[in-house]
């Protein structure tokens, strides 16, 4: 029942755009619907990373706590985007805190479930990895630009 309703949602999300119906059906087997209230902490740094999220609606902040400056927002991600990739990389732990800035609806994809499917279906695993790598590259570029502090004083 749940699987039937999640399939079209997954297929419509930009991250999965263009995947075959068969692949979508396979991935949907690892997906569940989640809702976070504004301000709700989704994951804390150091938590086991068992999943990643595709956002359907809302906004999530990736944050880090520093003793000197308190809780800092490093980046926000919104509808059509994904967050959380530590499920791919040992030791499978969250590197940042994730907190819903506003009411957020997302799909959670179970990392263990995905890893098992990808072992059995490397073609789909490679396709998904390419998509995640694309997101990595975009985020890295954005982080580098952020580091340039382009609006700061030139002197």
């Amino acid at each position, binding site marked *: 029942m749940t699987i039937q309703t999640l399939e079209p949602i997954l297929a419509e999300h930009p991250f999965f755009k263009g995947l075959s119906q068969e692949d979508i059906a396979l991935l949907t087997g690892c997906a569940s619907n989640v809702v976070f209230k504004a301000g709700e902490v989704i994951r804390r740094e150091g938590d086991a990373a068992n999943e990643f999220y595709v956002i359907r609606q809302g906004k999530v902040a990736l944050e880090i706590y520093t003793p000197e400056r*308190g809780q*800092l*927002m490093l980046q926000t991600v919104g509808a059509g985007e994904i967050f959380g990739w530590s499920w791919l990389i040992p030791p499978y732990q969250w590197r940042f805190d994730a907190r819903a800035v*506003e009411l957020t609806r997302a799909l959670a994809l179970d990392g263990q479930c995905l890893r098992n499917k990808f072992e059995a279906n490397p073609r789909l695993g490679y396709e998904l990895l390419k998509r995640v790598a694309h997101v990595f590259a975009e985020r890295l570029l*954005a982080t580098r*630009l952020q580091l340039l502090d*382009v*609006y700061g004083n030139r002197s």
Partner: protein
Amino acid sequence: MVIAPEKQFINSPTDPMLPQPYRIERVRRETHDVFTLELRPANGTPVMQFAPGQFNMLYVFGTGESAISISGDPNDTNRLIHTVRAVGTVTNAMQKLKRGDCIGVRGPFGTPWPIVEAEGSDVVIVTGGIGLAPLRPVIYHVLANREKYGRFALLFGARSPRDLLFARELEQWRGHFDFNVEVTLDTASSDWRGNVGVVTTLIPRTQFDARHTVAMICGPEVMMRFTVQELMKRGLTTDQIFVTMERNMKCAVGFCGHCQYGPHFVCKDGPVFPFDRIAGLFGKREI
């Protein structure tokens, strides 16, 4: 003998090299290092007309001149408005001026934003830091003529909450149902409810019809470079993208060559350029 500041200017509306005396009616502090001056001609002449994107040379008596874009409403015939970030000799001296003080104004100079060409299209403004000031006249114009344009988006990036320019107006603009205003900061503490990340990250999230869109960009050059790339990924072509260039200026009328940018003089051929005119120069080190 003390000469009144306005008498120290020769009043010649026809000579673009001679500053006209304007009196400061109001100084508004925008952020810790940005302020807005509201000016009126000291000699009773009408306030100059300008097109969004044009700039004036503002002369702080005894210190020097700086090129500053006009940041007010092009339909406001009562005041001339400039928003300035204090960064060096002239702009720091300008920051010390008070209500009632006199300042010299030459202009308006330069090419405007393509507000006429953009009629019938979606308009996307991408800007960062003080770059919002030269684009504010476009925002006033589009909002006053909303029916002439398609979707309208403002993507604005700033360093931190304390650097948010025109914060109160941003709030007002967000209240318009047909104006998509997105603000993003480079860093923020967790009480910030908006976006965090560079302004380019807002582009994939923004709705516009790439075939019928005009994009206007103003900000530091590296920000503009990556913004152009992101817009082109969305399907815009170089003739749909307009950027504004900043070079040191002296005469502002195409005589001295100070503002040369490849074959162009920014004061006369710019500061607003269709990107296809300067694409070959953009980001080149030696220029």
